[in-house]
């Protein structure tokens, strides 16, 4: 399944300005690689780009399709195919415990209570969370929380996983846990990050600056481009 961005742009009207402000103005892109990274400065438009992919933000010009489905008109079908993980797992985990949150994900899919419980346990077990299933989400470490959010999103088996700066709130150990977990996923992954080591794991990296793509290609060159953009010397 591939994501096709057909020259989408996102503009918003700002009070006191005649011209709308452009948040994002992209060229035509086809995202088909297994692992895709998006890097760029704060406010460059990374989050807006990711939110285009599941219809959380709709383009004001152009269009975005996922496997042929339009993110505007067929948004529900798109969201079933595209799982989205936010930076802060606490804003994403709705229920008090990981078990209950995963079961919440499965409510519509599995009507039978016992069956739903079994499915949820299988998902939690896969992410090594079964022992923590009944703990309050507030008592989990940052990495465990992020894994719980990931488990809740992957429980409904989306075909594509989008992650918005998933490692920003994590310490080194938890970041490594996230990296190995992501590496083991069968899903296509699109993620934004400030972590250049995570970016280096990707098959293709887009560098975003001021709302547009300034580089598109292999990870090492993308990282070099981003460093130059930030006024940093190239790595010795």
């Amino acid at each position: 399944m591939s994501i096709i961005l057909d020259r989408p742009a996102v503009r918003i009207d700002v009070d006191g300005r005649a011209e709308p402000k452009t948040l994002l103005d992209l060229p035509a892109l086809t995202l088909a690689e297994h692992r895709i990274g998006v890097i760029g400065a704060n406010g460059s438009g990374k989050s807006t780009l990711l939110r285009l992919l599941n219809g959380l933000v709709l383009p004001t010009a152009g269009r975005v399709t996922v496997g042929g489905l339009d993110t505007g008109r067929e948004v529900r079908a798109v969201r079933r195919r595209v799982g989205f993980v936010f930076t802060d797992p606490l804003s994403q985990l709705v229920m008090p415990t990981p078990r209950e949150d995963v079961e919440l994900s499965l409510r519509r899919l599995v009507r039978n209570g016992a069956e739903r419980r079994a499915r949820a346990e299988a998902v939690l077990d896969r992410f090594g969370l079964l022992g923590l299933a009944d703990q309050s989400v507030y008592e989990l470490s940052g990495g465990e929380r992020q894994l719980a959010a990931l488990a809740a999103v992957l429980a409904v088996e989306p075909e594509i996983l989008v992650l918005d700066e998933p490692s920003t709130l994590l310490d080194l150990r938890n970041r490594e846990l996230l990296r190995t977990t992501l590496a083991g996923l069968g899903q296509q992954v699109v993620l934004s990050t400030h972590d250049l080591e995570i970016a280096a794991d990707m098959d293709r990296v887009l560098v975003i600056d001021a709302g547009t793509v300034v580089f598109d290609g292999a990870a090492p060159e993308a990282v070099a481009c981003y460093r130059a953009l930030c006024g940093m010397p190239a790595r010795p």
Partner: protein
Amino acid sequence: MRGHGFLLAGYVPGRSMVHRAPLWAKFLLVLLCGVGSWLVSDWAVSAAALALLSAVFLASGAGIRRLATAVRPVLPILALVGAFQWWQLGGPTAARIVLNVLVCVVAASIVTATTPVRELLDGAASLARPLERFGADPERFALTIAIMVRSIPFIAGAFADVRDSARARGLERNPRALVLPVFITTVAFARQTGEALAARGLGDADAG
């Protein structure tokens, strides 16, 4: 974000009789206590009911400390109400009113301490099911309650955070420095929660 100290709905896992009692029976208990508090006129009956319910609570194995956590927040208000009623209507009436409120609190705590949130949601959803023919969506009804339960601790935690940062800047006496940031944090949390729910396809009308 802290807020963990404020988490409500303290379910205590267990396999006691009370845990295994059907949810409707526990709901019925709360309902009876609520109605009963209007009908009972003798404070001794209220005291007996309170003793009985406390015994049921402790029989569930949830422990005396969990019971104390449930009752403690209402005590200051009950003390005020009790004192006022004593002055207005005399000792027996004041005792009856205070005991009746405690009966209701303990009955409600029996439900929350022995029922996982998931089962409460299933219960809420099935309660709303008869309204389905009028266009109500039981799943959405249950989800709303879940989010409410989850958001109260967040807002309490936001208040604690903002109070600390106001204090750090020497602004703790300025109500605007307290209320406005909590208000903004809460709206931001609501938007994030809404976005996360939309991204997970929760709260949509049944997609079939």
